[in-house]
């Protein structure tokens, strides 16, 4: 079953068309890496899928619930209740974490389950502690975000997203704000989630990671999906000239 079905997504900011007819389907348990040059529309695409932006046209279905479709060339969105259900079904991990600075690590992870899902405090804390242990952060539960390294903050952000028990997790360059020596710990966590068959879409500039962890790699450029395929196809034997140029620019630096 496909957890994400996006068809013919278009999005413009004023005159600038950022997404041109993007279609992507992600099956349950699949890990998809999206790569591509800066400004190619990767973040905008994720933001359309997570309701942070509204696509202009196209059709999006997540977790079997239709989020939007197009009628008479105009986007039509689902009712608020459906949109809320979709929000809960899909989590997003940001490049710069966006933790709540005024809340402790534990509160960052428990607050949404308590406030949004109505879970009891003790139950939320129990779940949170399990997740923090998984993220190797058990001893940091009572710290505040400003007292943590970037890598630790990002792991808290992942735990916070997982606390709502989503079926899909989106990552927008989860390691780009981190010092190089800290990216490994985040990539390990994502790899661990992949081993547990979490469905994930990861925008990344870490080519080695995309090659190792992803089931499928999507190369975006200029608002379109230029090429997609299994990692060995894309990295070993890209068909498209633009893909090859992009990958070779990476090989050089």
């Amino acid at each position, binding site marked *: 079953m496909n957890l994400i079905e996006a068809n013919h997504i278009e999005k413009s900011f004023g005159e600038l068309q950022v997404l041109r007819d993007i279609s992507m389907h992600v099956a349950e348990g699949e890990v998809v890496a999206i790569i591509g040059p800066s400004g190619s529309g990767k973040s905008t695409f994720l933001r359309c899928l*997570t*309701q*942070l932006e509204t696509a202009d046209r196209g059709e999006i279905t997540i977790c079997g619930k239709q989020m939007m479709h197009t009628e008479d060339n105009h986007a039509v969105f689902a009712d608020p209740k459906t949109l*809320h259900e979709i*929000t*809960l079904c899909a*989590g*997003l991990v*940001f490049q*710069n974490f*966006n*933790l*709540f*600075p*005024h809340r402790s690590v534990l509160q960052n992870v428990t*607050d*949404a389950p308590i*406030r*949004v*899902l109505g879970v009891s405090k003790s139950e939320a804390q129990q779940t949170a502690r399990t997740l923090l242990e998984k993220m190797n952060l058990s001893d940091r539960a009572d710290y*505040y*975000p*400003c007292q943590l390294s970037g890598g630790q903050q990002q792991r808290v952000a992942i735990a*916070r*997203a997982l606390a*709502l028990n989503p079926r899909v997790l989106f990552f927008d360059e989860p390691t780009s704000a981190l010092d190089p020596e800290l990216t490994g710990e985040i990539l390990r966590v994502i790899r661990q989630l992949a081993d547990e068959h979490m469905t994930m879409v990861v925008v990344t500039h870490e080519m080695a990671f995309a090659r190792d962890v992803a089931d499928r790699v999507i190369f975006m450029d200029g608002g379109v999906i230029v090429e997609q395929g299994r990692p060995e196809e894309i990295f070993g034997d890209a068909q498209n000239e633009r893909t090859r140029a992009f990958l070779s620019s990476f090989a050089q630096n």
Partner: protein
Amino acid sequence: MEFIENITGMDATAFTAMIPNMLVGCWQVIQIFLLTVLFAVPLGFLVALGRTSRFKILSGIIRIYQLIVRGTPLMLQLMFCMYAPSFLFGLTPHRFAACIIAFVINYAAYFGEIFRSGIQSIPQGQYEAGKVLGYTKTQVFFHIILPQVVKRVIPPTGSEFMVLVKDTALAQIIAQPQLFDIAIKTAAKNVSITPYIAAGVFYLIMSAVVEFAFKKLESKLDYYR
């Protein structure tokens, strides 16, 4: 006794009589201060919400209000609140009420500006994180944004509170009794500058209390950045 007379230029009875009068003046200052804060802070919050509102007409009106209030002397606003009603409607307002109204109108504009910039200083990512986690807009504002705004606006609000302590002296222009009025009258009666110095000391003490309270509050919220 002679010592006091020599350094103050006031006789001892006049000096000792001055102190309780000045304490009354301080109490009047405190009343103006507290009532202004009581009304102007919540009003300033609404002003900030209005300014950041999507409704252009509302935010435009509030912007003009802030421009007028911040662009004209508080002294003039006090005069206006005291004397305009009798010119316009032929009724004389209660002096103390007119004084409080002028201060509230004035300070709500300044607090509004402080709170607005506080709200706008919170990164967009905080709203987005809340939305992605399924919070409603109201939950995002009250549980995620507002606590962070409070921390950020405490220092500038503290300075504004200190300015207010001293601004109460402007109520002199509408003959509202308060510490400065007592200083002037006592000075004139005794032909001495000592009452001014004494009043200065009292203003300083009140400002220092405000300063101290805000420093305490600031350090209470120091546990995060």
